[in-house]
């Protein structure tokens, strides 16, 4: 019986290449194909590692890829996922881990709701800021409820690609919505700031939550947050508190920093590291289930 599930990546850019390095390290995922639409640095890089490649995108992956590929990461664009990749992967019974803002399927923040998404064919990884902050919002809401949660994500200008820059609203709107749907806040708000300082700053995120149940002692909320931070470190080792939780009136505040693992991208790109780490963590969980059910089809 196979002890690894075969996976593919569509989109051999920065995100896709970093994903590949993380998959190499995985205990139960095997990198079975890198798909692009042109001959590119990323395709060459994958080939250099002996990974099968195609430049015919999702079609190439389905046609020429290993028939046992059961999970595919989509690191292309929202439009491509909506129009091509999402529907075609579904047709072929392949689970899609969507790293674009398309969000055909439900939002996934692994530590919070992956267990509930076991049967989904297409799961969306929200945004980098969402992956860094929603676990904390959830840590508060699970013990004291959340009337309102607000996050401020600061990423270095160098780690914000043209896609992010052209679609700032997508970031704020998607993250706000996921703070509600996944984080459990009645109302969510997200703010993103790009900072061009040199050397580039590590990704930092501030989380403010207005609790609903004012009777819950701060100690309990603090403990819930500290436990969540430790849990997150299991797949994002560079996740740490910069300012430990404090409470003023009904507002809980904490600031976290994400240092990337520098697999392919520099350490300051904690924003990209955390969304990729979350995507791989989600795939590993899904793979675990697939293996328990008898492995490759």
């Amino acid at each position, binding site marked *: 019986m196979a002890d690894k599930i075969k996976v593919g990546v569509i989109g051999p850019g920065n995100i896709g290449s970093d994903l590949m390095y993380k998959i190499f390290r995985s205990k139960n995922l095997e990198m079975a194909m890198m798909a692009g639409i042109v001959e590119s640095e990323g395709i060459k890089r994958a080939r250099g590692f002996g990974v099968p490649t195609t430049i015919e995108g999702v079609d190439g992956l389905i046609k020429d890829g290993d028939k046992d590929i059961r999970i595919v990461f989509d690191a292309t664009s929202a439009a491509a996922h909506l129009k091509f990749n999402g529907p075609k992967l579904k047709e072929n019974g392949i689970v899609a881990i969507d790293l674009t803002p398309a969000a055909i399927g439900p939002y996934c923040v692994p530590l919070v709701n992956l267990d509930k998404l076991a049967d989904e064919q297409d799961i969306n990884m929200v945004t980098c800021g969402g992956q860094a902050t929603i676990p904390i919002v959830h840590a508060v809401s699970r013990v004291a409820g959340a009337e309102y949660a607000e996050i401020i994500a600061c990423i270095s200008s160098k780690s914000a690609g043209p896609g992010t820059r052209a679609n*700032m609203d997508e970031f704020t709107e998607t993250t706000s919505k996921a703070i509600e749907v996944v984080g459990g806040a009645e109302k969510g708000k997200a703010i993103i700031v790009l900072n*061009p300082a040199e050397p580039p700053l590590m990704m930092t995120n501030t989380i403010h939550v207005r609790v609903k149940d004012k009777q819950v002692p701060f100690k309990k909320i603090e403990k819930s947050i500290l436990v969540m931070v430790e849990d997150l470190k299991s797949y994002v080792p560079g996740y740490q508190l910069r300012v430990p939780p404090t409470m003023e009136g009904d*507002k809980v505040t904490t600031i976290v920093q994400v240092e990337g693992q520098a697999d392919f991208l520099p350490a300051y790109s904690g924003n990209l590291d955390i969304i990729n780490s979350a995507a791989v963590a989600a795939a590993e969980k899904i793979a675990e289930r697939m293996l328990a059910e008898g492995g490759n089809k």
Partner: protein
Amino acid sequence: MKNRRVRLVDTTLRDGSHAVRHSFDTKQVAKIAKGLDKSGVEIIEISHGDGLGGSSFNYGFSKTDELKLIGAAAKEVKNGKVAVLLLPGIGTIADLKNAKKAGADVVRVATHVTEADVSAEHIYAAKELDMMAVGFLMMVHMAPVERIVEEALKMESYGADYINMADSSGYLLPEDVAARIKAVAEAVKIPVGFHAHNNMGMAVANSLAAVEAGATYVDATLRGLGAGSGNTQLEVLAGVLKRAGVDTGDVDFYGLMDVAAEAVDPIMQRPQIIDNGSFMLGYAGVYSSFLLHVYDAAKKYKLDPRDILVELGRRGMVGGQEDMIIDVAYQLSQKK
């Protein structure tokens, strides 16, 4: 400068919102907007101090929904145009559509001086909504002239109707302002404008230098009401420009003085002076709206506000990063 036509842009109801901790109500807004319009001000900006959608823990909650304030101003403004500020990353196109419905005709889309490309989608949206769109570069002391020109050209290419440069920290001296205005005005085909802060006592002088160097639009506020030590004082600037022989259209500076005395003086929460903290904003090159948040953090963590400001400047924090004040204050308090 003689006979040059310059347009005054009032931002009492937007930048001034910082100075009253976002507590404007519809009555105050209606009175100020009416007075400004009657006195011939052509563009009247109104929104949360951090732009549309700024109401938050991070920047302070608005006492009254900004859309209601925009609506109250729009009702009174007959000759001029109502403007809003929008910082991509905080405000969205959905917010802009609501502001347009409430009566806004102009949007100023503001980004950090090196990040103009995040304004593209919002400037496109403004043009689709048939609004005047202004490309607004903040913290222009943080980039060399050539870089500012590059960023201004990007905003022009998205469809901006004019480029506004903001000395958000009140850091620049007149010659620095002149160099920036001149270089951008020569590079773009659209007009340029300037937004000053008075942290080093240079706001009126810098605004005059901007006009001399070719600025067509100049931002100012009644009584200088604004973040940090405030902005260029509108009624004073109107008088100064008059003395310099600059044509400001039909601006009646007696009228402006009257609105300042009748509608602004009574609602000011602190004198708009250069106190120690606000001077340090200018000196250290820190975003002006950080000031009151720095005072709050200094009190909470028992620190000298100046130490927090200098550290924020050293770290290169940009507009919108008010949350990093807590971070800096916490880290400094741990070192003590």
